[in-house]
């Protein structure tokens, strides 16, 4: 499929005239999704999808057009549509596409993100895994009254990008996951917990751990109630840390920095976090869910250190934002599929792990609030000022051990304050779906609002 996609994008950019730059991106995906409920298959979907996106730059004006199909009759019109759209955009001297020199500036990581194995896994095995996952979760603890959902999904994704300036890249990867959500308790006292496992093929998955996680996370919150407002040190669960890193990633986006929309504006070289904080975006680490050898413009990805020992080193950039900032691309162009032109974003944000395990961190904290999950991340965070206020549930920690479960409270602080207040980074690097990696994090006092 890779070869066909490359042929397709080459065909499009081959039509570029002398006074325009053309980039074409094509993607293809084969997906299987299984949902089971009460011992039977509820939904089984097999799907093949693909599409093409074309970016045209004429005198600095950029136009974009896409089609959600690889059908020749629909693909045929995309280039002309993108050309027409370019007429309406304002010229921008930084809009030129990346060059072959950009593509050769760093070596391409040799990642093995494709599992041939996945294609040969029979559908019945996928169904069996989902059914076993549900069964295991339902049977682990008498306090679990039901399994809200249990599912398996996989995807084989391939893409190709080519430009009239000679940049070309193809990549492919497989992903595979299972997840389960458990319901514990009754009526108004119901608590839910989620568990999952990810890999490149079915054999990588660990459904038993997913089931145990879901059960533990739902049952340990049984009897949760609001607590009184207080200031308290906070311990973030790896899943929550991952979400918070997502906010940080948005604030370290070079496009936001160029437009003055980040709390880190002009702070390169300054202490923005505690000395124990080192933050890296490294898509060349194959363990990361977002690992990729090339970025969305076909340039090699690379390891970008953003904060080192608490000092801000820089922002993530694509070709256009990097040129405007005068620092060049960091190979961080991303796109939400063929329907959007390349933006900027992290793929594999991770904090450098510290020396202590989660248990040691609990002991170190003594008394704290352990945050198992947060809600309202998008509505409750101001990416410009860094203010946040989030709904939270979790457990109080007393004398280093989990105590009363807590729900319906909020925690509030600002991202800059929180970074400076990091007390301890856990050793438990946890590879999770999404563009960031989790671990346990202990932060100094925050405002908890409750009853």
């Amino acid at each position, binding site marked *: 499929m890779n070869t066909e996609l490359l042929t397709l994008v080459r065909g499009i950019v081959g039509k570029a005239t002398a006074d325009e730059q053309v980039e074409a991106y094509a993607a293809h995906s084969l997906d299987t999704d299984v949902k089971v409920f009460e011992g039977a298959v509820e939904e089984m979907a097999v799907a093949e999808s693909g599409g093409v996106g074309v970016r045209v730059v004429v005198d600095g004006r*950029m136009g974009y057009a896409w089609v959600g199909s690889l059908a020749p009759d629909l693909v045929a019109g995309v280039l002309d549509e993108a050309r027409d759209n370019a007429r309406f*955009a*304002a010229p921008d001297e930084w809009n030129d596409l990346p060059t072959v020199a950009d593509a050769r500036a760093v070596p391409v990581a040799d990642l093995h993100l494709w599992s041939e194995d996945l294609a040969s896994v029979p559908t019945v095995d996928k169904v069996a895994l989902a059914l076993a996952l549900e069964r295991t979760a339902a049977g682990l603890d008498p306090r679990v009254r039901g399994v809200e959902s249990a599912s398996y999904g996989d995807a084989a994704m391939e893409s190709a990008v080519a430009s009239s300036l000679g940049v070309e890249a193809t990549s492919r990867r497989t992903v595979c996951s299972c997840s389960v959500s458990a319901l514990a308790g009754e009526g108004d006292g119901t608590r839910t917990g989620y568990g999952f496992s990810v890999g490149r093929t079915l054999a990588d998955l660990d459904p038993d751990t997913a089931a145990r996680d879901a059960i533990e996370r739902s049952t340990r919150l049984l009897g949760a109630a609001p607590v009184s407002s207080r200031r308290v040190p906070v311990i973030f669960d790896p899943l929550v840390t991952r979400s918070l890193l997502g906010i940080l990633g948005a604030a370290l986006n070079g496009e936001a920095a160029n437009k003055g929309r980040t709390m880190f504006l002009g702070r390169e070289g300054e202490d923005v976090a505690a000395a124990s904080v080192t933050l890296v975006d490294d898509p060349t680490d194959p363990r990361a869910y977002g690992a990729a050898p090339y970025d969305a413009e076909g340039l090699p990805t690379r390891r970008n250190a953003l904060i080192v020992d608490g000092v801000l080193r820089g922002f993530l950039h694509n070709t256009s934002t990097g040129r405007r900032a005068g620092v060049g691309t960091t190979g961080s162009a991303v796109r939400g599929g063929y329907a959007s*032109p390349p933006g900027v974003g992290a793929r594999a944000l991770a904090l450098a792990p510290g020396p202590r395990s989660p248990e040691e961190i609990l002991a170190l904290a003594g008394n704290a609030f352990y945050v198992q999950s947060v809600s309202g991340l998008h509505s409750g965070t101001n990416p410009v000022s860094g203010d946040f206020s989030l709904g939270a*549930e979790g457990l109080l920690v007393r004398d280093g051990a989990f105590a009363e479960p807590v729900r319906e409270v909020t925690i509030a602080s600002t991202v800059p304050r929180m970074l400076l207040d990091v007390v301890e980074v856990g050793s438990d690097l946890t590879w999770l779906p999404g563009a960031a990696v989790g671990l346990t994090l202990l932060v100094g006092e925050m405002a908890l609002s409750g009853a």
Partner: protein
Amino acid sequence: MIATDVVERTLGVALSRGGDFAEVFAEDRSSVSARLDDGRVEELATGRSRGVGIRVVRGETTGFAHTADLSERGLAAAAEAAAAASTQAGEPVQVAALPDAPVGPDGPAAAVLPETVTKDAKVALLQRADAAARERSGSIRQVSAAYADGRRRILVANSDGVFAEDDQVRTRFMVSCVAEGDTGLHTGTEAPGRTVGFELFDEFEPEDIARVAADRALTLLSARPAPSGRLPVVLKRGAGGVLFHEACGHGLEADLVRRDASVFRNKVGEQVASPLVTLVDDGGFAHEWGTFTFDDEGTPAARNVLIEDGVLTDYMWDLVRSRAAGRPSSGNGRRETYRHLPMVRMTNTYLLAGETEPDAIIADTEYGLYCVALGGGQVNTATGDFVFGVTEAYLIENGVITEPVRAAQLIGNGSDALRQVDAVGNDFDTWAGTCGKEGQGVPVSSGQPTLRVAELTVGGTAA
């Protein structure tokens, strides 16, 4: 989109291995979006997508496949795949004969089809908004504006003989401003949308949208951190409908009820809310963001009363859940695209107006929060716990709206909040948004009169 005989034969292929129900859903959509940022039109993008999703239901199992290949061969291959995915054998139901042509509107309910409007005219709206926002105050540092229109034509046919089509046109405009002052940078956003064409701008001038967004950001400059604790919360008309969408609407979706993931399970006929609350979901509410003629399963849009005078009257239903329950669908079967399976979704969900003057509600509140705009929210339907970001709010002190506050979240529980509604105004407004469920986003609106919730937890940042 597809000839009637081809649709019939495809349904036959879908049921060739057995099954209780088969459906062909075809969709052709096109979109235009334009974005201005930092005073410059950065991008105009156009897109097109076309394909067919086919499902086969047998018992509780649904098999699904989709294709972008609309030839009869491509459709047959997808129908085979869906049949195989349902992994069941047995006697199929008979495919009911389809009418010669699908039922449906003659065209979209748009006075001015966006495709007949030049790209120049669309881009010009962005520039008008930019200028108006910057004129508002020198403190406005950044303005971004976006225009989007989309046309979605669908065709649905199923083995029960349903054969329907719809033609949906939606237009939306968004302005977001950043204001800078002593308290830092603050953002204000306004984004009206309707199921209409370019006539959206007869109702909303780009300048007016820009001023609302700019004023929202400017208000935050002088806002102090919101208080924390349990307070009475007055929600201005339109602003709080999303809270009821999240906090109760989702729990009334029949698929979640079946999964035991709803606090409203087994509560039909019971008093679940204050007697002041009547909650309606109406896919036919003229021109609203979540409006259509037929849902994505070919069921006509309907007005469904979910809670009447505080008593739970019904859930919302799609075909799969209503067939299992032996009742008709309520017209709430929706999907993001042909690549997704339909499920129970809200459309336009709103609380009906009451009899109290909005001013009287505020005058009757000694100390509380007056919310003019909410950001997004989130709910755990199994527990009813919700959280909402407040993007524009003021303190109420001694019955008077006093100063603006910022950085607040509302948290609470849907059942609690419904019971605690203690005043409902005689005004009404709606709000457009995208509702996400299991990874699928669909356009919805929510609405409500000015109302008061006697007590909600406000999570502010005030020390």
